């Protein structure tokens, strides 16, 4: 057993300090008013304008059309994040199920094709994807925002590895017990994959939540703006008074951070289990 020493704590504290400070600074700064921030820069003290800034950010109707509130944007981000996470899990589980449990021609080949796409970032195919969506008239829809990014090599790969670690006898026992392919998937594989699903859910939710380039391309209607885009918009749009609304930008940034943090905190236990547990 390794005994915890002071030095270990010091290292941890330094790490935590480096990680947390920017967030604290952003939060504290967001409670000052814009002029204050413009004059004094970032601050570490409580500014006292917490309630009004956050209320403004969430409810004031802004943008060119004057209809988008922070709350709208948050909902959009949520839809994107959840849609991504759920859609990717469903799709990659089904893909992995097909690859692992069904013998069809070129199965390995297809797996490796999917696997190679791991190496390609979204940006590589962003123009063709946009073209397709545009031709299908799916720009400015949630479908257009979510569906093209659902295919997930990472997810498929994770689930494939997991399904491969499920003993064959389980499938055979289920077959003898009269469970067909669909029943086996629903009754056995899905419950067994719960921790894996939680892990993938977190990764994919945060991934979807943080999407910037794709929503920027796909949506021109402000009704579909996400929080991440909103931050940019605040600094661009409300620049008229010479003093950008830094406080609101910071507040929005804090708000944008909140849901992913909460998801991670809530799912943390399953997340770690899902990524490390091999014993079933």
């Amino acid at each position, binding site marked *: 057993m390794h005994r915890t020493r002071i030095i270990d704590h010091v290292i941890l504290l330094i790490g935590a300090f480096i990680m947390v400070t920017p967030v604290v600074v952003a939060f504290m700064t967001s409670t000052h008013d814009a002029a204050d921030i413009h004059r004094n820069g970032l601050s570490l003290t409580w500014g006292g304008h917490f309630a009004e800034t956050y209320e403004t950010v969430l409810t004031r109707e802004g943008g060119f059309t004057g209809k988008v509130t922070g709350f709208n944007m948050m909902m959009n981000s949520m839809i994107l994040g959840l849609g991504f996470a759920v859609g990717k899990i469903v799709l990659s589980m089904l893909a992995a199920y097909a690859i692992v449990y069904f013998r069809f021609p070129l199965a390995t080949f297809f797996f490796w094709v999917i696997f190679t796409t791991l190496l390609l970032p979204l940006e590589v195919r962003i123009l063709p994807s946009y073209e397709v969506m545009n031709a299908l008239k799916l720009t400015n829809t949630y479908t257009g925002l979510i569906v093209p990014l659902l295919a997930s090599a990472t997810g498929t790969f994770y689930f494939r590895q997991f399904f491969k670690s499920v*003993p064959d*006898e*389980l499938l*055979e*026992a*289920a*077959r*003898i*017990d*009269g*469970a067909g392919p669909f*029943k086996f998937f629903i*009754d*056995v594989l899905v*419950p*067994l994959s*719960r921790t894996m699903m939680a892990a993938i859910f977190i990764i994919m939710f945060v991934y979807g939540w943080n999407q910037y380039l794709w929503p920027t391309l796909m949506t021109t209607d402000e009704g579909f703006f996400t929080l991440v885009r909103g931050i940019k918009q605040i600094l661009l749009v409300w620049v008229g008074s010479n003093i950008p609304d830094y406080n609101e930008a910071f507040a929005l940034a804090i708000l944008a951070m909140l849901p992913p943090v909460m998801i991670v905190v809530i799912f943390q236990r399953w997340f770690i289990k899902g990524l490390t547990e091999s014993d*079933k």
Partner: protein
Amino acid sequence: MAAIYIAEVSKIYTGGVEAVKSVSIDIADGEFIVLVGPSGCGKSTLLRMVAGLETISRGTVTIGPRVVNTVDPAERDVAMVFQNYALYPHMTVYENLAYGLRNRKTPKVEIDARVAEAARMLEIEPYLDRKPRALSGGQRQRVAMGRAIVRKPAAFLFDEPLSNLDAKLRVSMRGEIKRLQKRLGTTSLYVTHDQLEAMTLADRLVVLNGGRIEQIGRPLDVYHAPASTFVASFIGSPAMNLVKGTLAGGRLHIGTHAIDLDHSASAEGPVTVGLRAEDLRLASAGEQALLFRVAYVEELGAQRLVHGTVEEQELTIALPPEAPLANELAIAVPIDRLHFFSAENGSRLHRPRGTGVAAGAAPARPQAVNLEPAL
């Protein structure tokens, strides 16, 4: 409950490997058949073909009244117990037992009754609400058996069900499987590589080697009259000693030793002689004996196994623990308990020692009392 007929069944894998070569076994209703052989002999493949988990390349498998070659595993009315139990980890013991019945749309009341009955029989009632991971190996094995029992299938298929248990538990579970099978009277096909399990469980055992049947018979018949050198060395522990020798003029020559045989051997020329370790004993003065050089001794408590050589050929003798030891021992040869095998193909040469015929050689075995094997 049903009889199972396996008729000239072969398994040929893509790539041309023939894992099972034209195997035929008739299994009577309620019979306990053990398939035994070394790993890779095709015993599991054969079992899985009966279960429907492997396709049958050639031949037919009949369970009860129908040929099941193309029937789904679930429709074959068989239940299987796996080596690693294959319990559904996320289901409670109750759900594990009930799952197969539920899939068959059995009424809830009936499921409850059957699970309760199986649980009582296997003494797993206290664990019905637990998940498999909270159970010990032995308990999991019981649950796996319970899952087979609740189905009331035509046949049980066991795929090395005891291999994952520790030695002590294996012995007690072995007894339990036997007891349960006798009580339920369900036709059973049991695969193992452990000859002891095969001997103790089987009504009849089937010795497989390289995808072929070497011998089918009741355990004692196989033990006393192995059909080939393979069976001889596989069944019985320690393995039967196989020694090269020559038959000539009613005498057996092993190296420079010559032994008078009481009954005329049917063959002449080179043979492989089989000698059970437990049939060998120290020679008393004046007896015809083999000179045995001791290499090392294994103490088992009830007996000691002495390993060594006769004429540079390896031999093991089971001696009572009080037998005196020396570097060289004179070993008596029980001429009525010799097994002769063809030197070329290893098949058995003469008829098994019948109870009537060979007993006529009684005068030649004055030490018959000492010779009774401690079975």
